[in-house]
């Protein structure tokens, strides 16, 4: 099988991740943060070491990294834990439903109002578009680092600086870039980062995290047992326990730690270069095919994550993907849980065919993909 749907989840996972998960199931199936016996404390130590490795990669303090079951949950915590009635929120015009739906739901309930800032390949223009929407009531800007459909890269450092200038909280959705494109909490002016564990960090599915700066106070969305202050009905306010009610996914988190190690050893810059070369080689071939419609400029380090959308002839995206699937090539068709992105690129009529490589994708696989596409 040739797998080019790594934006959904990376596959295969490194052997080290599989081993770590299996080992964790055998050795660390104890409830961390609850018991005083050695195995429980040792398990907690393993969990903490994963926080430290994520901290090393992204620059947030280890105790400010809360594990979630995916990026969507982290975004819901970040958005709903930040706003109050009457607030105004700005999101981008390419947001995934993981951001757009919580914001829309809050607006439907009369809690907030929101606006969408248009993406532009001119970074300054993008920042200006956000700036133009700021109101006195604006308390939150949520912006993806890269589009999950078209790969468009947002200038999060500059958007974060704009937010700081106006005293607005800045949340970035790093679903497509964590482990693929370098992100640093301080350098990129990020107040809250939401990320999946199972995509660019090569962890197991069912993992993700929410990372916050020291200055950020988040209201809890999910209350419950934390192993602390059990005689009080008040949810503890300190991170990460305030965001981690209930039993943690130990084996998933420990597997994620192995995934983070894998990425660190490979080097994020090396992974980005490798994946971008794959996308560039495919783009060059697609450009030569009169029947192919491309929507984005030639991919470079400055303008996109390694994700590419296209359509073939007058086929629906589903038909193209189905024909490729018959040749054992996995690509993603349709709307990619992002109505806003398809609205922006005027692809609501048929969606797009999306390809996304991983650190394991080879040039040979890209060539086989192209050969099969040309046979359609």
């Amino acid at each position: 099988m040739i797998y080019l749907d790594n934006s959904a989840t990376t596959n295969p996972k490194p052997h080290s991740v599989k081993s770590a998960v299996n080992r964790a199931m055998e050795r660390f199936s104890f409830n961390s943060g609850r018991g005083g016996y050695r195995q429980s404390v040792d398990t907690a130590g393993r969990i903490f070491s994963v926080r430290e490795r994520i901290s090393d990669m992204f620059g947030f303090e280890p105790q400010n990294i809360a594990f979630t079951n995916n990026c969507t949950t982290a975004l819901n915590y970040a958005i709903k834990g930040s706003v109050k009635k009457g607030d105004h929120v700005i999101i981008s015009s390419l947001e995934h439903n993981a951001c757009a739906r919580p914001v829309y739901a809050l607006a439907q309930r009369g809690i907030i109002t929101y606006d969408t800032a248009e993406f532009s390949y001119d970074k300054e223009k993008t920042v200006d578009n956000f700036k133009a929407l700021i109101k006195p009531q604006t308390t939150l800007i949520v912006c993806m680092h890269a589009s999950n459909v078209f790969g468009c890269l947002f200038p999060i450092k500059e958007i974060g600086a704009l937010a700081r200038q106006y005293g607005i909280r800045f949340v970035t959705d790093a679903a497509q870039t964590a482990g693929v494109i370098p992100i640093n909490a301080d350098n990129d002016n990020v107040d809250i980062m939401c990320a999946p564990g199972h995509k660019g960090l090569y962890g197991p599915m069912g993992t993700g995290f929410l990372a916050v700066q020291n200055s950020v106070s988040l209201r809890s969305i999910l209350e419950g047992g934390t192993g602390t202050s059990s005689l009080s009905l008040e949810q503890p306010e300190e991170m990460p326990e305030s965001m981690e009610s209930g039993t943690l996914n130990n084996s998933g988190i420990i597997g994620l730690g192995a995934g983070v190690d894998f990425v660190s050893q490979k080097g994020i810059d090396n992974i980005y270069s490798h994946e971008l070369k794959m996308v560039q080689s495919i783009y060059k071939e697609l450009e030569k095919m009169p029947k192919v419609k491309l929507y984005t400029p030639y991919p470079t380090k400055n303008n996109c994550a390694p994700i590419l959308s296209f359509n073939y002839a007058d086929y629906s995206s589903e038909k193209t993907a189905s024909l490729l699937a018959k040749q054992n090539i996995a690509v993603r068709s349709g709307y990619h849980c992002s109505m806003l992105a398809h609205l922006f690129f005027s692809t609501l009529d048929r969606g797009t065919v999306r390809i996304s490589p991983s650190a394991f994708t080879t040039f040979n696989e890209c060539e086989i993909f192209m050969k099969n596409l040309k046979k359609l």
Partner: protein
Amino acid sequence: MSLYIKVGSITNAQRAQKVLKKNGYRSSVRRNPNCGYMIVVDSSSDDPVNILKNHHVEIRGVDRS
């Protein structure tokens, strides 16, 4: 003298243990009630407590024996 430094969450306990280790103190984490975890460390003074305070580790109480 043993200090029983009550730090609340296991995450705080892990942090506290690492901070103390860097400062030359061996400690252990134990379950603990203005419940959670405590750090047990042998010291003739309150230095470990002050070190943790300087590293912004939340301390909810200290028992000495």
